[in-house]
Structures are given as structure tokens and as C-alpha cells.
């Protein structure tokens, strides 16, 4: 019951013969050994299995692996730079104390990353809404929301002090 699909995963093109019964989460964890993506409920409630597909977050536990065909995927393993240095979102999570047990964190970080792409100047309620599909039981979300707000603020500051760049305004 296999179908061959082609997709881009963390910047790399992949051809893979997948069992059509498999969820994307199972493909990532069991076949590709990308265990950063977690399972917390299996029914799309908790968001621990969040990955980014074509610029939108999805719960990979209720997303068939075959649906990845032709799509571009980012998992938590694809966020850091090639030299291993952290993205600004990851850095903020670390520095702001947003990480406790860490089980929700891959999904949280991905939701945060995509959200800040879509909305670079969010309000606090907008951040909360954007992360409302990712459950966390350790943090009360306080420092997670702080971290996302910090990234937005820092990006703004950097944008403000950067020299005028015509291509950016084009």
C-alpha cells in the first residue's frame, strides 16, 4: 500500500515511498528519524506534532503522509542554521525561560516562527491566538508569549536601524 511522493523537507528534496496509511507524523518519526516532532494526543488537539507545510502550520498526526506530495515542509530540525546556530525565535525561547519540559516546544517554536512571518508586528492577543492550537502544561504560556513578543520587537528594532534598502520597500 505504498505510494511514491516527492517533497521538500527542511530544504532538501526527498523522494519517498510511503505507506498510504501513515500519518505525516509517523513518516517523520518512524521512517525519517526526525523525532523532534512529538505526539501528544493523536487527534489534532494539542499541537505537539505541529509542522509547517507550504507556509501553514498543520497537526501532522491528522495529516496523511501522502499529502506531503509536492509540498514544502519544515520541522523543528529545520529551523537552526546549517552551522547549528539558533534562529531568533529559538534564541528567544531559550533566553526568556520559555522552555520547561520541552515536549510542546518544537510545535510551539514552529507555530511562532510561521506566525511571525505572517504577522511581523503582532499584538499580545494576536500572539495568543496564533499559539492557541499548541497546548503547554508547564509554563502557563506566559514566557512563551513573552518570547514571541520579544522576537517581533527585536526584528522591528533591527529593521528600524537598518540602512534604507530599496529592495525591501519594493
Amino acid at each position: 500500500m505504498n505510494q511514491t511522493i516527492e517533497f521538500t523537507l527542511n530544504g532538501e528534496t526527498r523522494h519517498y515511498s510511503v505507506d498510504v496509511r501513515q500519518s505525516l507524523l509517523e513518516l517523520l518519526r518512524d521512517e525519517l528519524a526526525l523525532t523532534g516532532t512529538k505526539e501528544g494526543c493523536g487527534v489534532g488537539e494539542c499541537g505537539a506534532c505541529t509542522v509547517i507545510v507550504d507556509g501553514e502550520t498543520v497537526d501532522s498526526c491528522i495529516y496523511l503522509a501522502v499529502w506531503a506530495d509536492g509540498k514544502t515542509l519544515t520541522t523543528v530540525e529545520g529551523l537552526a542554521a546549517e552551522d547549528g546556530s539558533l534562529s531568533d525565535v529559538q534564541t528567544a525561547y531559550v533566553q526568556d525561560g520559555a522552555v520547561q519540559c520541552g515536549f510542546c516546544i518544537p510545535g510551539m517554536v514552529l507555530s511562532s516562527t510561521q506566525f511571525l512571518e505572517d504577522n511581523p508586528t503582532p499584538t499580545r492577543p494576536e500572539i495568543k491566538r496564533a499559539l492557541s492550537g499548541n497546548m503547554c502544561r508547564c509554563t502557563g504560556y506566559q514566557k512563551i508569549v513573552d518570547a514571541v513578543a520579544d522576537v517581533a520587537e527585536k526584528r522591528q528594532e533591527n529593521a528600524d536601524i537598518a540602512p534604507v534598502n530599496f529592495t525591501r520597500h519594493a
Partner: protein
Amino acid sequence: MYDITGYHEADSLATIFKIIKADPKAKVIAGGTDVLVKARERKQDFIATQLIGITRIPEMQGITMAEDGTLSIGALSTFKQVEKDPLVQQYIPMLGEAVSLVGGPQTRHVGTIGGNICNGATSADSAPTLFTYNATLEIHSEAGVKNVPIADFYKGAGWVDLEPGEILVRIKIAKADYEGYLGHYTKFAQRQALDIANLSCATLIKMAPDQTIADLRICFGVAAPTPIRMPQAEAFAKGQAINDATLKTIGKYCLADTNTRNSWRASKEYRDHLVQIIPARNILAALKEVQ
């Protein structure tokens, strides 16, 4: 692993019809946020079956407006697409508001408005709103195309008028059903996100120049086995000025029109109480939003 026996990615409506003809039990799947959850829960019709993926079918995509002002929403529009769509925001904002309250972001990114309707749940967030907009469902089958008013589509709890081989392709709303109306949707749930409604209510109102109610449409979810309009309340409201007495009477008629039940999620007594309060709040909120 899902307990399914095969998967087909349909590239056209014709392909769907062909597969279902050969295997009438094959299940159509769009975003999967209902179907795969039911499969995981091992619900009878959702395991040991083939799935037909339909998300790449062109006719079912996009939100457009016809020359006569009829809005046409592709059944595969995700909740997020509906929420962010400029036509929705301009002409039927209450629908955007309603679907923005579905589950969480991840669900809204893949869950579709067509799936929400075909699922047949009385708690579906898009349904009460579509009832008040008098939406028509364009359903295709090998035999042709039929247009079904949404109120006729819902037959009972989890039961809709959709035979194997029939596919909901588009949802249409005529200009007369949105022009001049203001609306507000209330999802009554325990949480602000990741929840289903214990009671929901869409309210659409059109005011006459003399500040009386020209038309009022109210639809409740979870107040009956299907979403349900409030004929007595709506009939009463026509020509009334908006004041406490009117709002109270609308609530009373809503109680008469609904058929709530006791469940462990909410009692009948409580639902009946809310039924009398929420429409009035919606009316005031709808009128306030325009100011």
C-alpha cells in the same frame, strides 16, 4: 497507522464518481480534521475503508462573486481562507467571524468549510451562519448538479442529504441574503480556543429606515439535532423597534422554537436559559459593530 485499505488522490470530480461507483463505501476526505479523528477513534464507517482525497480538485476551490452578486464559496476553502477572504470580509463578515472560532490555527489551516457542513454536526461553527444567509449547496454527482437549500440538507444528528457519489462542490449565497444585513455569531463554549460549542447562535439583522427591524434571522447550533432557524422569533421581530421588551420577547420565542437537550456537556435548563439571552446580545453586538 490509520486502519484504511487504500488511498486515492482524486484529480477531478469524475475520478471521485468512478471510484465510488466501484466502492460505494469509500470515504471522501478533505482536510481530514474530522475523518482522520474518527478513524483514530475507530468509528465504524471510518476504518477498514478506502479514502478518496479531494483537496486538489479545481472546481471546489476559491471564493468568487458572480455578476448578480451571488457569492460562491468552494467547498474546499479552508477555514483560514474563508476568514481572510476579502469578499467574505466585505459582504458576509459573520461567516469569517464564525469560522475564525473553529478549533485552533492548525485545524483552520486544513479543515474545510465543505467538510464542516457535510459532517452534519449541529455544533459546526460555519453552519448557523450559513443557515441565516440562506446558503444553497451545489451538489454534483454523476447524474448532474442539484442545488439544495442548507436547511433541507441537514436531516438529523450527523446525517445530511448526501448519497454516496454526491459531492458538495460549492456553497452559494445570493445578494439579497446578505445585502444590508448586519450579523453577529456567538460560540458558547468553555474555552476561547480548541473547543466545540455547547450552544452557538448566528444572528443576522436588517434595519428599516425608521429604525425598526426589517428582517431578522436567527439560527442556533446545538439547540436541536441540526442547526435550527427561529421562525416564530423572526416573524415577531419584523417591524419591531429595538428595545428591552422586543429583545426579551425574541428570546421567549427562541425558547419555543428550539429543542435543546440534556447532555453531560450542558444541561437543558442551562441551554434553554442561554437560548433566551444570546440572540438579544447578538443583535446589540451586530448593530454596535457598524457604529
